[in-house]
């Protein structure tokens, strides 16, 4: 029975990938991609990983989908969405390459699954080391304590993506266009409820992440979703300049994380050692703020944000 559910979701993934990527209009492709992302979240849930299910739904499907949609809207506003002609020969070659790669990956993957040993050495070490940290969620343990260099550099990747996105706009470009806000009374009421709710959910996810599924990334994505919502409802607007508060929010994750790690080094501890659960919360809060702020700015395509529109 449970195999049947897995089969159903797995088949759904393949069908949705095809729908998203081959044929049909680009707009339909984006919608199908979002459904694909949500189905991936189901797959992660089936694989016993609610953390990944949440992250995939919020970041992989939600925020990525919003970024794709706004890019599609901007390209259409530029009148640049015309399709280019394609040679039939290339399509045939591509079909061959696609089939071959699928067969190869299947063979490699099946061989790998068939040859699995008694369990990963690192995974064993993780299960043994986790209780000493006071954390109940092994994923948070890996991300903030055991392999925290990955996480720190990953927050730096997000920062690099933001700065690079600003760099590509050049000097003359303050902000990219956004669709006109939906100014219906109901939208306003809805946003008035949803925006504080997003903050609450984010804080809950952050707090829960030490013991239960959740953590800074999921929380940051929820914050970002709240920001995107405010922006689409016309409550938050792109600004040509990035205020000091927002600039601090962008780098808070990297700075607080590095700061804790370097202070520990100065105190004679190993570099990036985490002194306790309070430090985990501190670092995760800073990362949540950075992730939320960066993703909203990447959506806005602007240097900064403001509550009052510029006339």
């Amino acid at each position, binding site marked *: 029975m449970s195999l049947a559910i897995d089969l159903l979701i797995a088949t759904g993934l393949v069908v949705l990938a095809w729908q998203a990527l081959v044929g049909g209009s680009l707009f339909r492709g984006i919608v199908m991609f979002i459904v694909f992302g949500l189905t991936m979240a189901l797959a992660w849930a089936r694989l016993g990983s609610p953390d990944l299910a949440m992250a995939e739904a919020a970041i992989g499907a939600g925020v990525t989908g919003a970024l794709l949609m706004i890019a599609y809207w901007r390209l259409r506003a530029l009148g640049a969405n015309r399709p280019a002609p394609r040679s039939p020969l290339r399509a045939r070659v591509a079909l061959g390459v696609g089939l071959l790669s699928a067969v190869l990956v299947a063979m490699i993957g099946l061989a*790998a699954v068939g040859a699995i040993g008694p369990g990963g050495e690192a995974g064993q*070490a993780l299960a043994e*080391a986790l209780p000493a940290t006071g954390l109940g969620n092994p994923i948070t343990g890996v991300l903030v304590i055991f392999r925290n260099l990955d996480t720190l550099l990953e927050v730096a990747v997000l920062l690099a993506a933001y700065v690079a996105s*600003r*760099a590509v706009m050049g000097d003359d470009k303050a902000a990219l266009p956004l669709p006109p806000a939906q100014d219906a009374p109901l939208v306003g009421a809805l946003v008035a409820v949803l925006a504080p709710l997003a903050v609450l959910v984010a804080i809950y996810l952050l707090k829960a992440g030490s013991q239960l599924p959740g953590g800074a990334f999921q929380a940051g994505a929820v914050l970002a979703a709240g920001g995107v919502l405010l922006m689409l409802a016309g409550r938050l607007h792109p600004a040509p300049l990035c205020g000091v508060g927002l600039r601090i929010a962008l780098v808070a994750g*990297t700075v607080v994380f590095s700061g804790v790690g370097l202070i520990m080094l100065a105190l004679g501890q190993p*570099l990036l050692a985490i002194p306790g659960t309070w430090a985990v919360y501190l670092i995760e809060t800073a990362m949540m703020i950075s992730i939320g702020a960066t993703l909203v700015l990447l959506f806005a395509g602007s240097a900064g944000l403001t509550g009052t529109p510029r006339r």
Partner: protein
Amino acid sequence: MIAEALAGLVFLPLLAACAVAVVPKRAVGVFVWSGLLPLPALLLPLTEAVWREGLVRLAVAGFASPLGIEWRVDALALVVLWLNALIAVFVGLYAARDYPPGSARGGRFWALWLLLTSAMNALLLSADLFNLFVTLELVTLAAIGLLVIDGKPAALRAAMRYLLLALLGSLFYLLGVALIYGQAGTLDLYQAGERLGPGLLPVTALVLMTMGLLVKSAIFPLHGWLPAAHGNAPGPVSAVLSAMVVKVSVYLIWRLWLWLAADWQPAWALPLLGLLGAGAILYGSVLAFLQVRLKMMVAYSTVAQLGYLMLLFPLLGPLGYSAASYHLLSHGLAKAAMFLAVSNILAVMGTDRLDRLAGADRRLPLDTLTLALAGVSILGLPPSGGFVSKWLMLQAAWAIDGWLWLAVILAGGLLAAAYLFRPLAVLCARPATAQAADDGSPPSATGLHWSGVVALLLALGALAAGLAPAPVLALLERGLPPGILP
């Protein structure tokens, strides 16, 4: 002391980048230089330690592998760290002219520059296959951000192509990492190497990761994205892209084949990798000769020179290893100098089309000199770092009767002479018509700027590498890959 130095290499530029993003414009300069200038000083205690002990290790966060991430510095990593520090500082000094730290564009440029420097240091330190993936992504995003900073249409298009291929390359690398973790149960490069053997799955993983990295390092025949990207980037960015960014991917290929797979590398693949290198040398050199733009010529020269780094595989041994490592160092210095000089020529002459550059040496004597001196090293003439590496490489080929490799190295040298002599001949030619360059503009009116001096210093560094190679070669000999005996 060592732990502080290692931490500084990554966190100093990283925190400086954060500061640049936050502080007011007038304070940006202070943070830029405090993030860059101490880097060589941080390498001094590390050099001493590597010289003494051969290997420096640090378990980040206090958790050793397999659970945590380890940093490891051996002789090869140290040499490339030095190159990265020198390029970051010297090319950075040059870039301060084009991108003043106090300007709007300058803020973005320096944040990305510092992030790139930090990311490459983190990559060179890391001994963890997944952490290497994260650093590779950071390198890619920061590098492409720098590439588009002037917003030139050709650069935008080249950046898009580069980004797509780099992301595809990352996917192949990550698939390989997934297989390695499944089989070995650890992500540590050295531990995984010990746990694995010459089976189908480990070799498949090795091939997948190598394919991904070959795309990122633009090794023939996957070089297609490089000339447009390096040829259209702003001058200092071209310099760092050619000198460092493509090199760190080749460096990783070396790590995978000579350390991770030291005991189980498939022997049949070594000549194959060498053939890619040979193809790069011949194809890149011929294309360099055919270019009409000076900067595109220098970019194709990078395609060719990257080929020598792949000759390490068929010439595997102490000589071949020293030769390839030394080539990485000397080409980095020479190519950075060359791109900076070309960038100056482009700025002053308004074009880099070879047919319009006649007589440029009168207006730009310093940059012409830099171009010539850097050319000496690229060519492999004595006394230069390029000569040392190519001479060692010839010896290595001779020692194993590798006539094919011998012929390729010699042909590469001759072709380099051809493509490098052509622009120098043009620059020093007297214009046929009187109203051309010699219109009474005083010679060297714009030539003597400190940015030109910086480029010259890099070229002189490449030459100096030929005068005193002994310490670096001795250092490299202390850190030979496992299985290679001196």
